């Protein structure tokens, strides 16, 4: 792991422990390459009282390259989330920017859950899950322009 990502991840870790955004808790960070973050479905949304876990895996050239982010253990039912935990969200792939942080990624995912009006799996879920690579970063995503 390069010095570039070590310094930045250490700062992000401290930030996440000291001042986590609402609904976001760091659950484990045994090392600087894989973290698990707990996110809670917000009140008054379709995911109220539900708890989910996001697994972040950082490449050695983070933040030049995006982290791999997947849901683990309990996968939310959502039109942009596949049942294997892969998330269709452009900032995790083509539109990643070093301006984003672990906190802001968690908040974007929470807001994606919160603005959901119809709890269902993506229409191509079974086809996608049958053929998807282990990492969602290997998928060629076509992003939905349309509202959820």
């Amino acid at each position, binding site marked *: 792991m390069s010095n570039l990502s070590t310094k930045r991840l250490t*700062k992000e870790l401290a930030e996440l422990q000291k001042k986590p955004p609402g609904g976001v808790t760091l659950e484990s960070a045994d090392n600087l390459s894989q973290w698990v973050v707990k996110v809670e479905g917000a009140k*008054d949304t379709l995911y109220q009282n539900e708890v989910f876990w996001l697994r972040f895996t950082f490449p050695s050239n983070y933040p030049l390259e995006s982290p791999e982010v997947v849901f683990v253990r309990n996968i939310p039912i959502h039109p942009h989330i596949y049942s294997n935990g892969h998330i269709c969200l452009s900032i995790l792939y083509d539109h990643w*920017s070093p301006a984003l942080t672990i906190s802001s990624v968690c908040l974007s995912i929470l807001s994606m859950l919160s*603005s959901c009006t119809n709890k269902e799996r993506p229409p191509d879920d079974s086809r996608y899950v049958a053929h998807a690579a282990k990492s969602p970063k290997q998928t060629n995503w076509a992003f*939905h322009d349309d*509202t959820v």
Partner: protein
Amino acid sequence: MVDGELLEVLKGCEEVLRDRLSRSSSAESFLTDFKDLVESMLSARPTSSNSTEWSGEYYAAVVEELRALGLHRLHDVDTDFEEVTLQIIDAGSRRHLLPITIPRPGELRHLTVRMDLPGRTGPAKIPVSRTGGRLGLAEVVQAFEKTLEEFQPLWDQLDDLDVNTWIVEPDQPRRSHTYRRIALGNNLYLQIDIDPTSPLAPPAYKFLGADRAAAKCRETARKNIGAWDATNLLRKNIESLLEMTLPSRPMTDASQRSALGSHEMEGKECGICYSRQLPIDLGGDIDGEVNGSGAVPDQVCRNGSCGKLFHHRCLYEWLRSVPATRVVFGAWHGSCPYCSAVITTTKP
């Protein structure tokens, strides 16, 4: 794929062409290579076939037209020379990409242009004059620039919303998108659809989220809509309408991070690696060519409302990793990771 006649001319050169394209340091050098290649192939062939000779001239003319247009406007040329993408910077420093399909020789009836503009569905077919085999790219660019002028007021308002509020939809706004779903906090969202011809007028709007909170917002908006001031910023009007300050995207702006108290979090650190001094070992880490140890962030985003600082090496490595970045005459042109404004750097 490759046009029949051009393919004929370039037979056996596909590898060379692909190799040149991947190694060209700039669009200029690729175009020069490409033209030389077509010309050398043409001169190496017996000149019995008139049509082939003519198509070689045709492509040479296309290259000349591109050159006349100014190479700073050339964003990309595909290997088959079937599509060129131009980049146009508008009055508000926004970059627009304009992919144009190059007609095959002898089929020069119209240009197919894909414009990312409001109200535009599908590509536009622009009839071209056939005189002299010219494509008329300059005219297309001129017309496009004129259309861009019309949308400046709209994009000024949309950019202001995109930078200062938390937009949840579209996930990645394009220039053609006139709607925005804005997070208001507490799981409440405002969706607006702006009329491109009068962006300062009250937009069509609806609230999404918890029933009671949404009903309360609707009520507030109804009460205040009469006070809408079409000379003011759209964002400011929305804030007056809802009697609240629109929350900004969490944790991406410098002021929020500086509130965390770390002395290096005061905006003087690099926006990519979060350090002030570039780590000593990093110089040898990437390319092993330049030692960047001890360097402080000296690259600054020219967008006044952003002004983010970056280490030369960090910014260069970032721009280099983004496929949309272009290299022209040794300068790397891309967008700021924070605000997407055009940012330029050189190889450190």
